[in-house]
């Protein structure tokens, strides 16, 4: 720090005489600043972590889940969730978690098969056990599971089973994978459509803009639910599960892009008049360079926020469709498919654990909203 007493006149190009210390933020890129701001948002971090855990667990559903989604434990159909324990009935501690044995007995009065907990026998849970064979992502075969029971006559259903004795825990994992991936692909497709059409409308303006905007207004004026129903009902019944999956995703994206397109257009129209874009034009930049180097980076962060926020809408839409029996079908499981089987009062009363997928949907949607909130704050890191 210098405190020289230079005559003012000689320093007409008044460079700051005092060297200000270089702050970390001075040379930080936009994304760094965004991250620094984002991580101050605790709820968003929480939401992000929940979603990350969901994504990772479901990505490795074959490995994490002890069963495949269609495998049945006939003797434990409609079974309650089995809690795991570390401390047994005699109060002694076991390092290895265990479940109590279940015994099936015929009720002498009703003549029904009933399962009771047998606290004298413990089934210890093992990790990295060899059990059912599966094909990871349809690519390579394995039979290694994260956890399970060594004895293949015993069974482990942490979240219970459905009417047919299928393991709810495994099914929820597979369903999470389907639903999140539909969300991701759907949002991705919607984003592509939105950014292309919105971009064309916003950059060229005039007549093109008018046509695209009217198209968007037309699509948005159609009530969504009947439209989905109509489109989904039009899918041929004989299509394979995979074909249905892809077309449902496409249907959701086709309707979801309008919102994004509007945002892209609005942002581009505003950016076109920004002084730094005008300056780029004067610098001799081509249209392509202006768009890719100046305009896109300026609203990419906003678009990502929009994406995060539109994610739950697509997921909810899929859940709604499948719940109504018009979306995914077995053998593909999604949150909606799982909830479909929890539709009647009888199962809700007798097997409330069938509603667990609904809880997962709620957690995911809330997590997305927290995440979106934090990202919205971080998208403009230059304001305090």
């Amino acid at each position, binding site marked *: 720090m210098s*405190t020289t007493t230079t005559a003012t006149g000689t*320093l007409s190009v008044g460079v700051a005489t005092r060297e200000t210390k270089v702050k970390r933020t001075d040379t930080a890129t936009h994304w760094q600043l965004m991250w620094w701001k984002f991580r101050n948002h605790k709820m968003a971090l929480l939401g992000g972590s929940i979603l990350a855990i969901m994504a990772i667990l479901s990505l490795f559903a074959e490995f994490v889940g002890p069963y495949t989604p269609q495998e049945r434990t006939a003797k434990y159909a409609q079974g309650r969730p089995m809690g795991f324990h570390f401390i047994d009935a005699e109060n002694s501690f076991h390092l290895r978690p265990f479940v109590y044995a279940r015994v099936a007995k015929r009720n002498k009065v009703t003549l029904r098969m009933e399962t009771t907990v047998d606290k004298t026998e413990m089934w210890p849970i093992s990790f990295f056990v060899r059990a059912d064979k599966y094909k990871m992502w349809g690519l390579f075969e394995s039979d290694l599971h994260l956890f399970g029971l060594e004895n293949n006559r015993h069974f482990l259903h942490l979240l219970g089973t459905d009417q047919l004795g299928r393991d709810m825990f495994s099914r929820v994992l597979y369903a999470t994978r389907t639903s999140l991936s539909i969300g991701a692909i759907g949002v991705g497709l919607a984003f592509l459509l939105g950014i292309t059409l919105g971009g064309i409308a916003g950059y060229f303006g005039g007549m093109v803009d008018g046509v695209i905007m009217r198209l968007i207004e037309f699509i948005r004026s159609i009530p969504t639910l009947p439209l989905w129903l109509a489109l989904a009902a039009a899918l041929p019944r004989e299509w394979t599960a995979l074909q249905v999956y892809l077309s449902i995703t496409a249907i959701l994206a086709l309707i979801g892009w309008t919102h994004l397109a509007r945002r892209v257009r609005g942002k581009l129209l505003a950016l076109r008049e920004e002084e730094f874009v005008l300056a780029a034009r004067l610098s001799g930049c081509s249209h392509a360079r202006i768009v890719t180097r100046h305009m896109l980076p300026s609203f990419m962060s906003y678009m990502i926020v929009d994406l995060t926020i539109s994610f739950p809408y697509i997921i909810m839409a899929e859940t709604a469709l499948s719940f109504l029996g018009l979306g995914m079908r077995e053998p593909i499981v999604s949150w909606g498919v799982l909830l479909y089987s929890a539709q009647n009062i009888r199962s809700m009363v007798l097997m409330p654990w069938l509603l667990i997928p609904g809880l997962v949907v709620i957690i995911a949607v809330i997590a997305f909203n927290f995440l979106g909130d934090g990202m919205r704050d971080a998208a403009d890191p230059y304001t305090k």
Partner: protein
Amino acid sequence: MNQDTLLEIKNIYISVELDGHSLPIVEDVSLSLKAGEILALVGESGCGKSVTAQSIMQLLPKPLKIESGEIKMNSHKQGKIIDITKMDPRGAEIRKIRGNEIAMIFQEPMSSFSPLHTIGNQLMEVIRIHRKASKPKAKAIAVEMLDKVGIPGAARVVDQYPHELSGGMRQRAMIAKALSCNPTLLIADEPTTALDVTIQAQVLTLMHGLQSEFGMAIIFITHDLGVVAQVADRVAIMYLGNIIEQGTVREILKNPKHPYTVNLIEAVPRLGRLEGRKALVPIQGSVPSLYDRPVGCPFVTRCTRVINNRCEEAMPRLLSMSTDHQVACFLYDSTEGETS
């Protein structure tokens, strides 16, 4: 407190909470204002002039807070001396002061009008709350006020919405709203900065006229020394949260003492000095950020007359140069080594 003193700010400190640090933005500011006097508060962005004014109405935005000091006001309507710093910013006491004894006008007139109600309704609301007037009476007062601020066709404008008026007219309407309860103090925060120069001249003339008619005191916040010279009686120059020089307008502008004031006057282009058009003498560097506030005199980083081992060490105290001219600079402080 003296009988004809209207407002007295004593050693007020205001700080802001940023990233867990408490940074001072107004330091040890003392001001006093006589009834009917126009005081200009001058400085560049971030010097704390607006914050000081907001504190008078307990209107500081969230992360800002008065740390210490007092703001005393001789309330004519209540017939006693009140201390504003002791009041709850959301309490009933301060609401009796705001808009009633102290009114405020801003740079952006839309900020003091709701777009959903007519100009008349918004004026009448204030009048009815503070003056306990009946509805027809309040409307009559509203029309009278609009007429006084020179809005043509006041009887018609009273039923119009704010967006139907032009910028200059909105500014006038805002002044009418501020004056409708006959306040003893008007705080004007850069009221003409956004206006064109011809409209600015009209608004300044208007304010001058209203001041002599209503007799209220005005605190005029501005960065424009020309506006100061034209409207104010006294002026306080602020730099980085400190008053570095204050006195009568004529004294300060014609006989500035603090190097910052001297440089500032030199750096402003003027019409009167056209011949030859010599290069302006700029102040070097820029105002340090709150985080980089220098120890000692706040101007030390840009000053050309730094006294070694003194200016960087301590904040100089305000010294009286004459009856109404005080300056905070070691150049005029002969008491060696002593700090206040």
